[in-house]
Structures are given as structure tokens and as C-alpha cells.
């Protein structure tokens, strides 16, 4: 059964069509990146999967359920570009928030938070407040929080977009390790071609106005990806393929009808 199934989804905001006629299926264990220029509707699509906005027409299914039911069942965790940590909560308490809402008892919460802190390598920072952490550390807390209740699906909306290149590459590596360890499915929105190719099993290329899927490229780089993956010739070939797909999307849009 697919984790995500999108059928003929269209979303309009007033006069503007954000996405149109989107069909997409994501299988368990996949790491799918949505890439495209600003305004191509990739964040809109991510929010439709998460039932944070509802499609104008078409259906979105998560784990075989309507997206709304999946949200209520807490089937996914989400990470935004900003860490969106709650300033009044310590690192531990931020990670524990979804667990509190899911009515986990205290003992289970404490154990799980400890495990998540080890996963994102932030042990020792339990009692820090968000403002005491660097941007990269804040984003790691945000990822730990999204994964704390073991969701089948992780939605990420440009999670490393605000970070510097070095932090970004390090967190890319960490994210892949977390993905392998947690065996969850990831939908990842990004602006960066290299990031999409490095992380994904599949890259979905989108074109703007209205947002459509213009190409889907399988990334057949061997797993697990390592620091040297970025130096392999095939990595560059795939980066080139995605780049060309992106420009093709642009040209089609600009071509006279």
C-alpha cells in the first residue's frame, strides 16, 4: 500500500491556481524530494498531504486513509524551514509536546525524549531554551520532535533552507542516518538540486503557474549515501538531469501556446 496517494489534485487560492492535476504515489521507505522554482506549488502540495490545507478538487490519501483522518491519527510529523520551537519550552519539553498531546504517560515520554536526543546528537542540551541554540541545533530539535511519536511519514518543507552550506551538508548526512534508522517515508521540499539528488530515492520536478509535475527522476545512487557520493560522476549526471528537467519546465511555460 502506498504511503501517499495523490489523485488529480488541484488547489486554487481565489483566482490563482497553485497546483493543477497532480498525480503522485509514494511507496513505504521512499525519500521523495519535490523541487521547482518559487510558485510551483511544492509547499502547497506538502500541506495538502498533511491536511493543513484542503484541495479544491481531487483526493489525497495517507496510509490508505483520507489525509484528514491521517492527520487526526497523527500519521505524519512535519518540519518547516524555521524550526518553530516553542520559546517557553526547553529542548526536552519541545520534543515531548506531541507526546503530551497524544497523552503518553510521563515515564514513556522521558524515555522517548532521551532516545530522540541521542538520535539527533543533542544529549546534554535537555534543559536549554531554544534561543540558546544555533540554527542547526534548533532544526535538529525540530526533527526530533517530528519523529518523536514514530510517524510513518515525515514531511519536510525546506528544512535546511535557512542554514549555511556546511551545516546543511552535515544535517543532510544526519537526516539520511535518521531515515535509515527509523525506516520512515520522507517527502522533502527543497530549492537545492544537489540536496535533492543527494538525499532522495526519487526527485519530483515541478513547474510553475500553474504548479504541475513536469518530470520524475529516479535517483539510483547506491545506499547508504556517504560524503564521497557527492564526488561520484553519476551524482553529477543526475544533478545535470534534474537541472535540465527544471529548465525544460521553465521553457515549456514560456513557450507561446
Amino acid at each position, binding site marked *: 500500500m502506498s504511503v501517499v496517494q495523490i489523485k488529480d489534485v488541484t488547489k486554487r487560492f481565489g483566482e490563482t491556481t497553485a497546483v493543477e492535476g497532480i498525480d503522485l504515489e509514494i511507496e513505504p521507505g521512499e525519500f521523495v524530494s519535490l523541487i521547482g522554482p518559487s510558485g510551483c506549488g511544492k509547499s502547497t502540495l506538502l500541506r495538502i498531504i498533511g491536511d493543513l490545507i484542503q484541495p479544491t478538487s481531487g483526493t489525497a490519501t495517507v496510509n490508505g486513509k483520507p489525509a484528514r483522518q491521517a492527520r487526526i491519527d497523527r500519521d505524519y510529523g512535519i518540519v518547516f524551514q524555521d524550526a518553530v520551537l516553542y520559546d517557553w519550552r526547553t529542548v526536552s519539553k519541545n520534543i515531548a509536546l506531541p507526546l503530551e*498531546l497524544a497523552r503518553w504517560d510521563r515515564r514513556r515520554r522521558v524515555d522517548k525524549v532521551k532516545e530522540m536526543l541521542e538520535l539527533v546528537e543533542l544529549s546534554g542540551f535537555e534543559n536549554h531554551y531554544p*534561543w540558546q541554540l544555533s540554527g542547526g541545533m534548533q532544526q535538529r530539535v525540530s526533527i526530533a520532535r517530528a519523529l518523536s511519536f514514530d510517524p510513518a511519514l515525515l514531511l519536510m518543507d525546506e528544512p535546511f533552507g535557512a542554514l549555511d552550506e556546511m551545516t546543511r551538508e552535515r544535517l543532510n548526512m544526519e537526516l539520511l542516518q535518521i531515515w535509515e534508522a527509523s525506516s520512515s517515508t520522507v517527502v522533502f521540499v527543497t530549492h537545492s538540486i544537489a540536496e535533492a539528488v543527494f538525499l532522495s530515492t526519487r526527485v519530483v520536478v515541478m513547474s510553475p503557474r500553474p504548479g504541475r509535475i513536469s518530470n520524475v527522476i529516479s535517483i539510483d545512487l547506491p545506499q547508504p549515501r556517504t560524503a564521497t557520493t557527492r564526488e561520484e560522476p553519476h551524482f553529477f549526471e543526475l544533478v545535470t538531469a534534474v537541472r535540465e528537467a527544471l529548465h525544460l519546465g521553465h521553457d515549456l511555460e514560456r513557450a507561446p501556446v
Partner: protein
Amino acid sequence: MSTTPAAVQPVPRGGLGRLVGRRVVDWLPAVVVLVGVIGLWEVLIRALDVQAFLLPKPSEIARTLWDNRHELWTAGWFTFQEALGGFLLGSGLAIIVALVLARWRLLGAALLPFAIAANAIPIIAFAPITNTWFSPLNKSSKIVIAAILCFFPVLVNTLRGLTSVNPRALELMHSYAAGQAEIFRRVRIPTALPFIFTGLKVATVLAMIGAVVGEYFGGALNALGVLILTRARVFQFDEAWAGIVVACLMGLALYIAVAALERLTLRWVPSTSE
């Protein structure tokens, strides 16, 4: 085992000194200014031979303050109770109303313009009216005027706080399938707290003004406002000034109490913990 990255900022340590916020050294410049101004006041009045009814010497005010300490304390305590009662009543109601208006937006949209307009009304002008609603000798008349004065700034600030939540923070709560009650408890109210304290600090000052000025329009004989007014009428300006000093100290005490509570509550805000 993985290497532990270094913290960007140290964990702030709590302590009694932190309660009011600063170390003694940090207060030194302010103390120097205070002593300097009082000294200059004393010297200028002596040098220019200013009449006592225009402005008494600080030393005279201080002596009167000491000599009449029992009477002044009784009057001050009486008025402070009115101010505190009005502050608690007005601020408490304002926070409850703000929660209701933030929860049901349509109601907020219908009523908020009036709240903002009412905030601009010189409410102290109603003091003679509340004196007729209740007996002027009764504390209630001053509590009501102080409460009305406190109500609007706390309402407007609280409402702004409750509605200025990061949209992503709300999306996150929706992704956890959290209900409105959970969103208020865990996101909106904590976000609003710094705004609420800003409103409360304004309200402390207004509460004291409401109580004292309310008493100018008639009040019990042992009230601070009445004491200041009657002494000024019979040219006992040093006593009137002593009364004003007591009013200032009471207002300051209320303000500092709220500021201390703020520091204690908002430990997560960098500016209050460092």
C-alpha cells in the same frame, strides 16, 4: 559515542538576585542620579531661597515623612488596598474578556474597535460618577475607577498577544490534531504572556492614579488622596508632599512586584534571564 556540540549560550542560573533582574552594581548609576538630583534640589532651594509653598526642601519632606509616619502609613495602606483591588479586578476581567474575544473571532471583530476607542477615553473623568454610584467613603468607588482604568490596556495587550502567534506554530499544532483548548493552553497563552505583562505594568501605574485621583473627588478621611488634598488646602505643603512621596512609593512597589513576577514567569525570554 558522538561528540557533543558546544552550546551557543550558557544555561541561565536562577537566584534571588535575578528575581529583580540585576546585580547591585547595575543599579549604581541610577542611585547616583537619584542622590544627585535630590542633593541639587536641596542646594538650589537653599541658594535661591524658594518659598516652601512652591517647593519644600527634600530634607523637610523627609522629616515630615518620618514625623507623620503612622498617619501616612495608614492612609497609604488604605489607598494601596483600593489600587490593588482595582488592579486585580480590572486586569483579571480584562484577561478573561481577551480570551473570550480571541476564541470567538466574530465577537472580537464586533467589540474590539469599541475597546480601542474606550482606551482613548479619559476614564478618570468618571471618578465623580463612581463616587455617586457607591458611597465616596467606601473603597468600592475607588476600586471601580481603578479597575476601569486597568481594564483597557490589559485587554488590548492581551488580545494582541493571543493573536500574534506564528502561523507555523499553529500549523504545527494542527498537524498534531490539537483542539482549540490545547492550542490556547500550549501556544496562544504562552505567546501572549510577555504582552500581558506589558499591559499589567501599565495598569499598576493607572491603578494608583485611579485610587488617588478618585479620592480627590471625595473619600474617607484616612485616605491618601484626601490627605494630600486637605493638607495642600491649609498650606501644609511639606505634609502634602510627604503624601505624594508615599503615593509614589506605593505605585513603585506595585510595579516592582509585577516586574518581579514577570521575570520569574518569563525565564525563557533572553532579556529577562540575562
